[in-house]
Every structure is written in structure tokens, then in C-alpha cells.
């Protein structure tokens, strides 16, 4: 597996993603500069968290239109594995690769804490090593993670089983209290129609070693390794 981590000016989880892919997973890992037009043949592209271009316009809006995104779109269009975490999720939406919008957290403040996610589908390269309804503990760290979509979009996402993660409590119940940002239907992540693009607000890369308080996030990377070996994405 060859993983590329795109670095936008203002990305700040780029090192975290590189560390998880390189040191934790042992993949060939390379950083890709935002002005680059090639992904150097990567099998997996990660858009990391951060404040790309300072997020001074709308989160991810400028990054979504930066030169490297043409290559990312092409990669995703060809079925290439694409993972957007946090700001990366916002960028994928701004780039039109995923539906919906990410609004300001309903509490109007930044939130950083461990939350629980319920795995809603194992039918994706990102979740295939997990159990259906498995509860994983990963941190969130965002101010704009309140997922919103139109009724039609939401219906479609549900019908097509494209919501892999919802915020839940420790027991796996989807409750309002477990929702850290006001996201519709506790949605924490969304898959593309082709199921090869995932955008999610929580940070699996920050929960990939038990010394960090949880290694549950590694399951997502393990899934990718299996999917890659299996299908050769």
C-alpha cells in the first residue's frame, strides 16, 4: 500500500496521518504538496485535518479548489481510496466529492474529546475489518462538524447505506447526548456512492496506538490494508 498525505498550507494533522500510515501501518508513505498535480501513484490519498488556508473563507472552501484537488478527484473518480479527516472531510464536501455541508457545532464552540462511534456498515473498504454495530472510541477536534444534508440527500445516504459512522454513547446507543456537534442523525462520516471515498469528522489517526488512550482508530487503517490486499484498490 502506498499512501499519500496531502499538505495544504494550514494542514496540521498531516504529521499525524503520515505517522499512522508510516510508523503504525508500515506503508510506503509520502507527503504531497497542495500545488502538486500528481499523487505519485498512491493507492490511498488522505486529506488531513487542520485549517487549510486558514479556513478564512468557509472551512475547506479554498482547499477544495486548489491544484492538487484535480488529481484527487481523478483518483477518486477511478475508484481510488480517498479518506478525508476533519478538515479533509470539509474539503471533500467543498470539492463536491461528498454530499452535504458541515456547519458550526451546535454549541458554537470548538470541541476536543474522545467520543464513541457506532459502525453502521461493514460494507466499505474503511470498515470491513470492523463488526456491524461495533463501538469504537476516537477523538474529535473541530469547531465545524455539524453535518447537514437535504432531506433527499439524507434519504439517499440512508438507502444506499453510505453512513458508516454515527455518534453514540459507550453502550452504542444513538442519543442526543452522544452527539457532540448537532450533526443530523448523529452522522459522523459519509461514504461516496462508489464507497471508495470517506469523509469523517473524528480522527482515527489519533487513536491508532493504545498509548494515546485508544487504538480503535487503527481498525479503519487495518480495513484499508485488507481491502487493498483483497481487491487491490
Amino acid at each position: 500500500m502506498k499512501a499519500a498525505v496531502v499538505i495544504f498550507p494550514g494542514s496540521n494533522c498531516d504529521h499525524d496521518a503520515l505517522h499512522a500510515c508510516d510508523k503504525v501501518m508500515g506503508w510506503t508513505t509520502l507527503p504531497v504538496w497542495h500545488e502538486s498535480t500528481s499523487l505519485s501513484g498512491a493507492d490511498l490519498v488522505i486529506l488531513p485535518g487542520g485549517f487549510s488556508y486558514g479556513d478564512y473563507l468557509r472551512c475547506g472552501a479554498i482547499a477544495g479548489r486548489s491544484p492538487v484537488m484535480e488529481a484527487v478527484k481523478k483518483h477518486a473518480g477511478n475508484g481510488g481510496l480517498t479518506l478525508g479527516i476533519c478538515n479533509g472531510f470539509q474539503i471533500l464536501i467543498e470539492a463536491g466529492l461528498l454530499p452535504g455541508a458541515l456547519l458550526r457545532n451546535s454549541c458554537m464552540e470548538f470541541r476536543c474529546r474522545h467520543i464513541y462511534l457506532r459502525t453502521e456498515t461493514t460494507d466499505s473498504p474503511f470498515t470491513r475489518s470492523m463488526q456491524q454495530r461495533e463501538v469504537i472510541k476516537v477523538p474529535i477536534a473541530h469547531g465545524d462538524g455539524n453535518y447537514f444534508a437535504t432531506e433527499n440527500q439524507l434519504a439517499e445516504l440512508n438507502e444506499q447505506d453510505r453512513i458508516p459512522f454515527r455518534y453514540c454513547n459507550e453502550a452504542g446507543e444513538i442519543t442526543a447526548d452522544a452527539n457532540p456537534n448537532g450533526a443530523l442523525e448523529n452522522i459522523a462520516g459519509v461514504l461516496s456512492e462508489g464507497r471508495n471515498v470517506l469523509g469523517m469528522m473524528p480522527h482515527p489517526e489519533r487513536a491508532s496506538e493504545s498509548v494515546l488512550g485508544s487504538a480503535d482508530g487503527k481498525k479503519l487503517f487495518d480495513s484499508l490494508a485488507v481491502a487493498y490486499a483483497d481487491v487491490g484498490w
Partner: protein
Amino acid sequence: MAEKLKDTTVPNPPTADLLATVGLKPEEYAEACRKLGRLPNIVEMGIIGAMWSEHCCYKSSKIHLKTFPVTGKRVLQGPGEQAGVLDLGNDYALVFKIESHNHPSAVEPFQGAATGVGGIIRDIFAMGARPLALLDSLRFGNTYPVEAVGNPEADKAVDEQPQEAADGSGDKLNIPWGDSPVPFVCTVSWMTTMRQQLFERGPEARAAVKAIREMHTGDVHVLAYCVLPDQIQLALYLENGREEEAEAAVAALKEKLAEVVAPQTQGKPPWDSFVMLHPRHSGSELMEAIHLLEFAPVTRQKVAQVSDYKYVSQVWRYGVPWLDDETDNTEARELPYCAGVNDKQAARSRYLVNGVVEGIAHYGNCIGIPTIGGELVFDPSYTSNCLVNAMCVGVVRKDRIHKARADGPGNVAMIVGARTGRDGVQGATFSSVELAEDVAESRPAVQVGDPFMEKLLLEATLEILDMPGLVGIQDFGAAGLTCSSVEMTAKSGTGMRLDLDAVPQRAKDLSAYEMMLSESQERMMIIVEKGSEDSFREVFSRWGLTAVDCGEIIGEQRIEVLHDGAVVANLPNRPLADEGPEYDRPHEAPASWKNRHLLDDRDIAAALERINKLPVATELAGHSLPAPGSDFEDILRRLLMHPSVADKWPVYQRYDWSVRTNTLLGPQGSDAAVIRIKETGQGVAMCTDGNGRAVSLDPRIGAAQCVLEAARNIVASGAEPLGITNNLNFGNPEKPDRMWQFVESIGGIGDALRKLDLPVTGGNVSLYNESGGRGILPTPVIGMVGLLEKAEQAIPSRCTDSGLELFVLGTHHARLDASLLMYDIARLRSGMLEEPDYKQFISCMNFILHAAGEGAIRACHDVSDGGLLVALVEMLAGAQVDVAPLLAEGYDMGDHNRLATLFAEDGNRWLLAVGPERKSWIRTAALHYQVPLTPLGRSVDGRLTVSGGDEEWFGCDWDVLETCRRYGLQAALSGD
């Protein structure tokens, strides 16, 4: 280049307004003229004013700061650079520093705090290090109304009284305190038969005190007394000098006391011996003897741990005969004044807290450096002067450490990063004067931060470190361009010709004066070898940043500033950087210092009465609370919900503490936050600690206690303390009592560091923190770092498993002086502190570090704010464990001492949780290290039950305590 200095004449002598604007005192201006040999023009005056401001040249503090220990085997860089550097024992080094942004934050909290964070981050990466973590130490006025107590004029009146000389010449008794023998002074002590503990219990001890006080009449003066369980000690003075009167008085007292203890002795003589020591002291011997008496119970307690005799030592203090005001010894003393907080001030504090937290979150989260710890404290003294201290810790490969050098004439100075605007002009001067009470007027002196720009600057700077041709890096801190150019060149024995026309500007028509003093953020100066500019420009441009040649290093030690083709300033740089004014400001203890006293029974009784009158919370942030079942429960709840103690999670969840995937123990994960260093596998523990309460009562011992508190936190996380940075927040140094607090605190910090063999590697001084004539509580903040050779051995402060054994490690003297309970809740701002027991501290530290290395400790939490029970609730917070203390024997005491056992904060104590399999190991290890390790028992049914001896003191539900702890801060910040 232009030859002639541009004429921007200023009136001679300059007007007072002009001098105030540039921040120069008339005598400083005169000195500057002397050094210069001519009159400075306006730009030069601005430069001199900034360089000679308290902020840049530490003029009031320098001579005292020099006393700090600054060396050690790990010190690679001590004070004097942008940040301190400590060797990690391999290829890497730790870079860290703390800095304040108090005044800007009081004016514009969001930007003030944000730029404070930005500034300290730049200090770290300007050394070549990658910043890995942030901590912040915040202090605000209360966010809810608080009534004033005491008489606001009382302490002023005391201050205005002629100061009594330390030799006691103001003494009403005319005791000749000098070296010649006093007419008749004796110290007396006698013991009980067989050393029976006849006065151990409250009633007997109190009766003894009463009898002694009655003795103080006519010609016999009791200067000091001490009642120990098995011993009475007195220091007597006889005005007429007749020794036999003393004997008669003591004999009468012995008889009286024999009656008191008759029920215990059943008619046998209670007294074993009668010893009269030193019948004729010299004055200085007498003072020493009095001091010994005063602390006798303290010394004794180390043996016996605790008892009821704690409050029965009393010293008659120079000129204040206690019988006059203690005829009724149940009547309370007048409370020292403590300002109140009105609705408007409370609302402003809420605004400040929210703004500061948002500013820190905005900057730290965006730049992607985790904010992993710190402090949040509330006190009325910070109402108009909040404290915002930020600390940053980074790691650098040793061969990449870069300093602020400007060597090599002909080399090029480049200004990189943001463009220069008018923001923060004169910020350095602004932070060196007292805040006006209406501070909103000062907005233009506050800078605006752009964390995105800084992120780019950070990455670009780290990228150029390995490039050939790089000579030096310095960030633009206070006094921007002025300070960087002067400091870099003065240190390197060079000078600089600076061309302001080349400086990228974001505002129109900036004057030279403004450009030199602008504190626009996210700018740095790099010095590169001539000819290599392009390669550097290329890196910065890839990050979207400009890097512009703006100056040239010259051999002559001068700063020449060109603007519009003319020389607008031409100053020698050494006098600016190294020969600034240095003041040994007068410092003297306030008169009230001499009247300080240990809190005694009646202080505490009165305090409890006040607490009993406080309204009892029935609801907290929407959670209802049942009525407390006992006074102890009531007190415990008040402490837990106090915003300085309650869970800080409402604040910490607004900070990104997990970015960079190094945070092993983040906010509240441990007493100190711990990050790992991926390159070495080591862990670095860090914390910030201050304690304005203790320092206000005794600046020397209080400041030493701050160092110990920080060290306790570092050790609790399993790390070995390495060194400190400090932020000294004090009031106006031109007032002798504030200066005295400052000087004494520095002494105390130095004392503690020498005992623990730790260096200071730098820091920050923030003076003039006062408004309306009242200073803040003197608040030195210690930022300490520690090292774990194996990161994974970090110890959390919370117990999450059930079935663990709990112990208290260390001892204390059970004194409530300076405790949150007395000082904050009961508003009793008096008392005395004890000398710390460094020897025991070091033994305990070695014990914990050994046990940590063995993996024997599952959780460790130090006992600090709020005392033992608060620490216990914090340690067990949220855990589903059913364990609670049954206090060991020896803790059996009278009412007030039970109080002190549960809520005192003195001494060095830790709570340890140990797996049952290591219980005997840990006990054996404690014996080996000769450290006191006291087991705490267990209880069941979701209740905390506190017992001493065979008696249950009180019990209450964990759930209620947890509610108080969890929602206290939220309730305080919501303004309900």
C-alpha cells in the same frame, strides 16, 4: 547613504507627556542624552524608551533575577536567549519558556491571549525547535458577585504607620532587643510525669492556654507560649527584673494546671521536672527562642503526626500585647481586607474568561499545537488585572539549535512573515505601566494575531534550519524591529544598518517611529550570509511568505535606521541592550507582616461561623443537590464546586489537546501533562503552578511552595523534574511592599531550586499588575518540565480500576493557613507558612520514581488545592470504584484538627493507588526510602465514609460530590 541625521527635533527638555508616551523617566532621558552625547530625536527616543522599558530590560528585576541558579548538567541554554534548552541525554534537547500577556488580555481578551500564545510559540521555533505542546496559566476575578470583607482602609492605615524597625524599637515594652542582656527574660519549660499526654485533648489544652493568658498581667509578660501534649513552654519578660516573681508566677500556673488535669492524674503530681533555661537572654537570643517556641508544635508534629495541640502556640508579637485584644478569646480578629466583586465586574470577568479561552483555542487549535494543561484560578484581586501566562515546550535536535546571532559584517538581515502595521505600537511600554481602571481606551496597543500565518512561518522556519548560510533567527517580540535588531547585534558584537523602506507594510504612511515600535505579529528576522538570500527567499515563497532584505550587518556597534532615504536614527546598540537602567528599588515588608500569626482556634471558629452563614447551593448548572448531611460535607462540596478546584473540562474541551498524536496524558490525565517524543521514546512531563494565596501570606516560603507544588505534579506523573521557567506576576515595583514581595519570592524560588538541584532556564517578569491602588496577589508561576525515560511509564492521576489500594504518601502539619477553605471560602486572608521539608520531599520523590519505574503505581495525585478529600474525589472522579478513606489511627483529633486533616493543603503529600499485588512491595519500598506511607481504607455502597480511630466523622454520596466537581466551573461561568 545619507550622512546627516534627519532632524525630527523634540523640545528640550521634552514635555512630560512626550516622556510618558515613549516610557522614559526624566532621569532616564538625561542618562540617555549623556550616553549619546547629544539629544535624541523622536525615533531614537522611541527606541530608547522601548529598549529601556521594564519589559525589555528588566530594570527593576535584573539584580534579583541574577540570584537564580541557572546552571546544571543538562542546561544547554540558560536565561538570555529566546527560550531555555535542556539536554535530553541523547541527540535531542527540550526547549521551553513561559511568557505573560496580562495587560493586552485585560484590554482585548481574545486577541490578547491569542497573540500571547503566538509569541511564545515563535520563541520556541526561533530556537530551531518544533513546538510540541502548550500550557496556560490563567487567573481572573470571580465570575459571580462576592462581598468585600474587612476594612479597605485598615491595611492602608497600617502601611502608613511609621515602619517599626526589625529590632523591635517600636516595642511598647521597651525590650532592648540588641545584644546586651535584657533586664529579665526567661524561657521556661517543664514536662509531665512520665511524659503523659495530659494536654493532648482540646479541653485541657485550651484550659492551659487560658491559664497562661491570665498570667500575663502586671509585671509579668508572657512573650510566647506553647502547649504540647506533655510539655508547657513559656517565654517571660519581667519589667521590673525580679526573678522571684517569675518563679512565683510559674509555680502558680503549675498548680492551676494540675487542677485542670487532675481527673487524668488521679491525684498524682503531674509535673516531672522544672527547667528554667537561659534566665537572662540577650535580645537576639530571645527572638530566636521565641521563634523556636512558635514552631515547636510544628517540629513535634513531625513525630506524632497530628494532635489537638496545634493551635495553642502563640507568640506575643513585637508591641502588640495579645491580652489587650484577647480578653475574650472567642471574639474574632478583624478580617484583613479583601475586595469584593460586583455584578458588573463579575460580568466582565466572565467576558474575559470566555475571550481568553477562545483566543487560546483559536490560535493553538489552528496552528496545530496541542494545549494540554495549565491552571485556571479565580480571585477578586485579579478582577481588573487578569493573568494570562502561556508556556510552550518544543523539541530540537541538538545540532539544529539556533540562536539569535547576527555575526559577520556584510551579512544580510531579512524580515520574514507578516507585513508591518500600526498594531501594538508601544506594547512594551504599555505592559510596563499600571492599567488605568478604564482599560478599554487602550485598544490600539493590542496586537492582532493570525495563526495561519504563524503556521506557515513555523513550517518555513523549521525548513531553513539545515540550509547553509543561515546565521541567526530571532522572532519579533515586544518592541518588534527595535528589539530584534538591537539584541541580536549587541549579543554578536556587530551592528546593523536597517532600511525601513524595504519593510513590507500593511498600513499606509507608517512613520519610522511606528515601524520601529510596531508589534505586528508573525514576523521574524533571519540573518543569512550575503549571496544566499535567494535560497531562503525561495523556501519562504513556497510557503506563501515574503522574505525581504531589510538590512545589513555592520562591524560598528550601532543601529542605523534609514527611512525615505534619510537616517532617522543612529544609536550605539550596546548601551541600548546592555547598559539600560538598573534599579535596586526599595523593598520593605508591610507593617502587617510583623503582625502575622498562625491561624488559631478562634480564627477558625469564626471562619466556620462565616461559612455556616453562606447560602447552601440546592442546584448546580441544572442538577439539584440534596441538603448536606453534615458541616464536613457542606465544606467539601463548597471546595469541589469552587471554580478554582472544579473540573476544568468545560474549558479544556475547547482546546485541541490531541493533535500531533503525542499526548499521553492530557488535561487532567495527570497532575502534569505528558507527551511522548516519537524520536526517542522518552516522555516529557510539564505543568504550570502558582499559588497567590500562599505567596501573599509569606512570599518567600509561598514561592518555594510553588516550586514544590510543580515538582510534586511532575513527580506524580512519574517523571523526574529537570528545570523550570518562571513567570513572575507582581504589582507595582515602585511600591516598597510590592517590591518586597517580588524580592522575597525570587529568594524563595531560588531556595527551593537549590535544594532540589534544579535550574531556571529563563522566564518572564510582569510587573505593574494593579489598578486602583491595589495589587494582584503576588503570583509567581512556575513552569516545570520533567523527563520519563520511557514514555509509557507515565502515571495517570485518576484511578479507573476497582480493587486498588490507596495510600497517602508524605506528611503535613495539618495547618489551614493559606488553604482554599480559609483563604477563599471563609475569606480569612491571614496566617503563616511553615518551612518546607525538602529532605522528606526528596525521599518521597525518589520513592515514587523508583516505584514508577517498577510499574507499581497505577495512579498518583498530589494533595494541593482543597486538601486531602478534594484530592481523593478528583482521583476517583468518574470511576466506578467503591473505595474511600478510613483514616488511619493517629488522625484522631478534636474538631478543628479534623478539619485541618481533611482540608489543609500544607506539606508534601500524594495519594497513591496501587494494585493489590503490589501492596506489600510498596510498603517495603516505603520502609526502605524511609517515607511515611499511610493506608486509606475502603468503604462500600457508593458512599464516601471518613472515619478516624473508631469514630465515623461523616459520610456522603459520591454522586453528589461528583456533581459538584463536574459542574462547579460551568455554573460559575454561566453567571447564575
